[in-house]
């Protein structure tokens, strides 16, 4: 199975203190500063829809959004351009990109330290129903690489992996680790 178009979402610890409008300015600043070396194109504002994509930074390689899907705010990384390397590298790269964006937001002066991400839980999905139908076979093919990744992220912690059960939804998993992890912890674990 070819694993491409990986999406990763890390959830915000507390979304009550945040006004999504602020992210329009922040993402525009990212475009201006060309952060991360990717081609960043535009900002789309979807605050008006319920439990939707929130505020989105449209890029060429990937979109980043402060996403409210499922009524849970989080940073969603949506990889659009195909990636090279083996599956393990692709998954790690997507998670690294998501975490890097999380860290950047956590350190954003305009947010005043109000935004923290939960490291002990994340969602990963493959945004291509043809390459990765939401089936048990896909899970079986995907699981070894996911486990390798998780053992890097959570070196000695116990974690669970749950597959998305709605068959019309894209193939996706939710990973939950026991213990407390920050975005920074995960980034460091991934690099070590």
């Amino acid at each position, binding site marked *: 199975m070819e694993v491409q178009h990986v999406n990763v979402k890390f959830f915000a610890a507390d979304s009550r203190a945040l006004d999504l409008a602020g992210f329009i300015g922040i993402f*525009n600043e990212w*475009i201006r500063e060309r952060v991360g070396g990717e081609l960043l*194109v535009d900002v789309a*504002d979807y605050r008006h*829809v*319920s439990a*939707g*994509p929130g505020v989105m930074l449209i890029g060429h390689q990937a979109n980043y959004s402060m996403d409210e899907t499922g009524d849970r705010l989080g940073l969603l990384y949506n990889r*659009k351009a195909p990636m090279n390397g083996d599956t393990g590298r692709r998954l790690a790269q997507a998670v690294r990109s998501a975490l890097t964006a999380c860290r950047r937001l956590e350190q954003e002066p305009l947010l005043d330290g109000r935004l923290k991400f939960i490291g002990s839980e994340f969602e990963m999905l493959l945004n291509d*129903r043809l390459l990765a139908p939401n089936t048990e076979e896909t899970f079986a093919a995907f699981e070894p690489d996911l486990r390798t990744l998780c053992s890097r992220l959570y070196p000695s912690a116990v974690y669970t992996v749950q597959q998305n059960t709605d068959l019309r939804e894209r193939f996706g998993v939710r990973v939950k680790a026991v213990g407390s992890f920050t975005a920074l912890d995960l980034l460091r674990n991934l690099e070590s």
Partner: protein
Amino acid sequence: MKASNQFWRERLLEEMPADLAREIDIYEMELELRRLGKIDEKVLAETRLRRGVYGQRYDNGQRWDGEATRQLQYPSAALTKGPSTLWDAPGMQRIKIPFGGLNVRQLEVLADLAEEYSDGIAHVTTRQDFQLHFIHIDDTPSLMRRLAASGITTREACGNTVRNVTACPYSGVCPDEVFDVTPYARACARFLLGHPDCQDFGRKFKAAFSGCKSHGCGLVNLHDLGAIAVTRTGNGKEQRGFEFYVGGGLGSVPHQAKLFDPFLPEEELLPTAQAISRVFARLGEKKNRNRARLKFLVSDLGVEEFRKIVLQERATLAHDSRWTAFLKDLAAHAETALKPAAALPPAFRGAASPPGFDRWLKTNVFSQKQPGYAVATVTLPLGDITSVQLRKLADIARRFVKDTIRTTVEQNIVLRWVSEGDLPELYGALASIGLGQPGAGTIVDITACPGTDTCKLGIASSRGLAAELRTRLAEQSHQMDQAVQNMHIKVSGCFNACGQHHIADLGFYGVSRHVASYTVPHFQVVLGGRWTDNAGSYGLAMGAVPSKRIPEAVLRITGRYVADRRKDESFQDFLQRLGKAEIKKLLQDLVSVPSHDVDPSFYADWGDTRVFTLGDLGAGECAGEVVSRVEFELTAAERQVFESQVLLDEGEFQKAGETACASMVQAAGALVKIFLPDIAGDADKILGEFRTRFYDTELFFDPYAGGKFAQYLFRAQQRAAGPYSAEVAHRRIEEAQLFVEAAYSCYGRLQAKRMLPLDSGSAPATAASPETA
């Protein structure tokens, strides 16, 4: 960009209607030819527009970042998909939904596509279409295939073509309608789709159907072709027909449609539409796109003369069985309910109802003419719905109705045939997915064009303003005077009027003003347009107000109306009585802009933090440039040559040779059609005409090679059936390539010598342009 793009064709081959599958193959091949530099960017632009593939803001590779205009360095920087339109830049896909009719499966497919190719949002437009934004052009063939497998084509969603045929979303269930226009709208959409007589327009062409005259739903008056259901009695029998209008349109110069026929019998609907199309293709302006809509032709000729020409044309048409075939089974598509009719239990009225239900019931539910059934409106903020909502809406539709779902021109979705007894449960289900907002058709149900969010021509943020107004008005709407609640607000990002601001009580369109060294976003305030009576009258501009003060302007105007209105006085009458000068006075102090030091917020648009600029304006694609039918057909011939090369590489020699031969006939046919637009595809006939008109006259002769390339054609046709070895096929392809080239040169020479007759669509010197005629 999707890694799966190469697999969808095979995966869906069995599920796509063969003609759609073939069309998409051809489109995909045209993309490939463009990548190889083999077709011109202008031709590709019109080709993709005709498939609903639009450009989007910043696709010229530049964007103002608030401080400077920056280059967007896309990987395939040198490749374009149209003039100044970069290949890799995100674009928009318009998805045509005739009369807004959808089934649950289609909702699910749209959900999947929005998620996989776009940004998780599907957008309902002001003409019942869907749009997906931020799409990579490489993904469009897959996207189209997945739509085709669910019975949707994007063909002619844009470009100089017959656009989506719209109809009131209540047709068939509305108590006030004369009869259900749905089957007529469907037949009209099918008949005109891809019709040869509709391929050579200088501009787009829009048709709309309405079931009655007095309500707004069909907006017939602002369409090129508008049909309102009427009946008359003859020989003791009721006969169906249409009050038939032509030449309406919005845009920067709005025109009310003119009455073409007070009673056009139903069997004359399609032939008349065909005759109008032919007249428009022949006499419509081609060069000056600003005067190319049918409305200019009708007003230049006068509707009497226009009618005369159309009726003459009608008389010459060869009979087509499709004109009336659909009348035989008008009832075949009749909708039915999933659940038995039932009344709303009294317990759900008043105090005992679930929270919010009463207000929703009042504004979003409309009783059908069929007792015990209702239409429920799902209000979509700014026309947007998420993939998750779409999928769950499909589930809800399955629970309560059959495939009786329609989009509306107010950018909402309606579920028809809901048993009234189910309404509380339906409301609960919609509310649980964030789709239970009340206020459909009221002042909070604001429509807006894409504006600066994604449109290259946008001046100010129509969606930003609409979102702001929606939030502010929703907070107060339940205390508002009923007369204000019933008003319509419509916003366009520029004078092109895609948001239909002319027909709103309160309309706005984006403009800009210079203040010191800055450009400041403003909206022109357009008051008193009428949505009822099928968009009965257009509003008048009252002056520009800074964007950031529009919400205040709205409150002021509506406040004054509530305070000063006479009993039952309509807003339009109130404006008349008040007079323009007084209204200007009312808004006067809102017009000024504080200096940047005092309030910088005026210098950025709604929903944006960048200092405002007009620098991002691009060349717009309301439609592509006019590419003549001859050019299109020559491009098709070229594509066939390419196809034959592919077949040769695959070892399919026989097919390769035949395809190469066919490409020559196609190219010859393209030339012949300059003189005989109606010639059919029969190879012998084309060859005969080509010989007499181009070979015997030496029109086709190359200045150096003489008639050599034409002889390739004649010889190839004698042996068209083969057999083809690799060598023979290869030679035939070489010859075909040269012949197609020669056809292009010949066309170029004719253009240069101004030898093209009127209807070849190439703006010859003798064309009777409406400006000169």
